[in-house]
């Protein structure tokens, strides 16, 4: 390092990127129709609106319980079935268990799924199967397969190859190798990922509900649509409890399993 490195000249090379960044911000702000003046006005309006929402309409609370339960059930079943399916996909996507052709096809399918947000998958499913719980669960399950399939597939690929070989050496077939050699080793990761995905699914089930997959998201969306903002706030509060509850539950289970020594 020379003395020159500490002269103001060393900042010169930052000038061009900064100017570029500023220009990009200006351009994108123009495209979005964004502006600080608009934001200022909007924020005032937003705050007064949030004030209007209070107090929550507690009389609507009992009506919210059923959809909330439905949302939780959707997230739960999608997580369970999606995780099971994800294990199958992960095994098919692991290079040490399957031949390259199947692996690449599976990886391609997983990549395709991952490149589509769940809500778009939901839109496609709604076009095919109509509005309702069915489309919502399938969309969330597929999301689960995309995320866990890739992560678990990578985890399986990291399993020591020699261990699989030692099972083959006693004459075990593929299913036995998977059941006795692979599954025991991925269970901790599997549980922890499934819990993580459950948290995500709870959040997603609310968004998907608003598009028509049923549940509390639908209540929220219609309340806002019908300008019943007090009712909407009740739904918001129920949702907050759900999200925090799911998070706490997942933490609790994770800690419990960790205490048992299963997660290492």
């Amino acid at each position, binding site marked *: 390092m020379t003395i020159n490195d500490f002269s103001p000249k060393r900042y010169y090379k930052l000038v061009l990127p900064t100017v570029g960044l500023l220009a990009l911000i200006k351009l994108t702000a123009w495209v979005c129709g964004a502006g600080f003046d608009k934001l200022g006005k909007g924020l005032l309006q937003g705050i007064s609106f949030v004030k209007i929402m209070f107090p929550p309409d507690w009389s609507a609370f009992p009506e919210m319980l059923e959809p909330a339960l439905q949302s939780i059930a959707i997230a739960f079943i999608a997580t369970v079935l999606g995780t099971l399916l994800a294990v199958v996909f992960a095994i098919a996507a692991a290079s040490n268990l399957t031949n390259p052709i199947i692996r690449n096809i599976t990886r391609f399918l997983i990549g395709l799924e991952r490149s589509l947000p769940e809500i778009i998958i939901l839109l496609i499913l709604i076009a095919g199967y109509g509005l309702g719980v069915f489309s919502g669960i399938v969309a969330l399950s597929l999301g689960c397969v995309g995320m866990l399939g890739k992560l678990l597939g990578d985890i399986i690929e990291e399993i020591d190859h020699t261990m699989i070989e030692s*099972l083959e050496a006693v*004459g075990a*077939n593929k299913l*036995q190798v998977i059941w*006795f050699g692979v599954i025991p080793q991925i*269970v901790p990761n599997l549980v922890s990922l499934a819990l993580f995905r459950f948290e995500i699914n709870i959040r997603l089930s609310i968004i998907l509900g608003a598009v028509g997959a049923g549940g509390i998201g639908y209540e929220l969306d219609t309340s806002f649509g019908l300008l019943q903002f007090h009712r909407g706030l009740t739904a918001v509060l129920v949702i907050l409890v759900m999200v925090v509850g799911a998070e706490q539950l997942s933490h609790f289970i994770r800690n419990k399993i960790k205490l048992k020594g299963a997660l*290492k």
Partner: protein
Amino acid sequence: MLEVSNLTKVLPNGRKVLDGISFKVKKGEFVGILGPSGAGKSLTMRCLNGLLKPDSGSVVLTDDQGFSSDICQIKKRELRKVRQKIGVIFQGYHLVKRASVLENVMIGRLGQISTFRSLFYGFTDKEAEEAVKALEQVKMDHLSGTTTSGLSGGEMQRVAIARAIFQSPALLLADEPISNLDPSNAKVIMKLIRPLSENIPVVGVFHQPEMTAKYCTRVIAIKDGKIIYDGDPKLTNDQLVEIYGEELHQLEQHEQPVLAIQ
């Protein structure tokens, strides 16, 4: 009976790692394979149970009924059937992590039970008791309930040996079964393997010529992928030098003989 003839293997980079390995092992024989590191001992062992396909040559295993099969030629399905009867102890033990010691031993019978049972019911209590007996033989029964992740190297090795014994094999292959054991446990294992060889052929790789001299009935020495010695287990110092190289000799000039034969 195990009949290995003319195994050759050339690596993709053109190096010939196995070069015409041929030997026969009969019932009642305990063959110890010696050789310097990288000689091709482990590769030979891997060919013997079909984990590695040699470029040419054959490995013919003949059972008591006179039924013989060439491990290098048969299809995958039949290979699985043959492997059920081959007990293997790997150089790196290769246990299933996070499964208990007992399960790791019972896994030895996987090929022998039906897929359906192994997936849904699993092993029976009788098999578990037998597995505990196998663990008792290697003095590991006190740890049968623990997971393998916490075991020491020697303990893992003994679990791997128990697995091979539990398999009640028709051929036992052991790649450095005592390399991680303390001297007294090494003796326990060798004393355990020796009587097994009365009923089945046993082939083991060792780095301890004094051990093979004491327990094996025959010694084969491999160097650079070729067999350079096949015969009496008691090797002379000159023969050892031929196998392991001049360094062995130089060492002995400064110290007392390390590899002297009792």
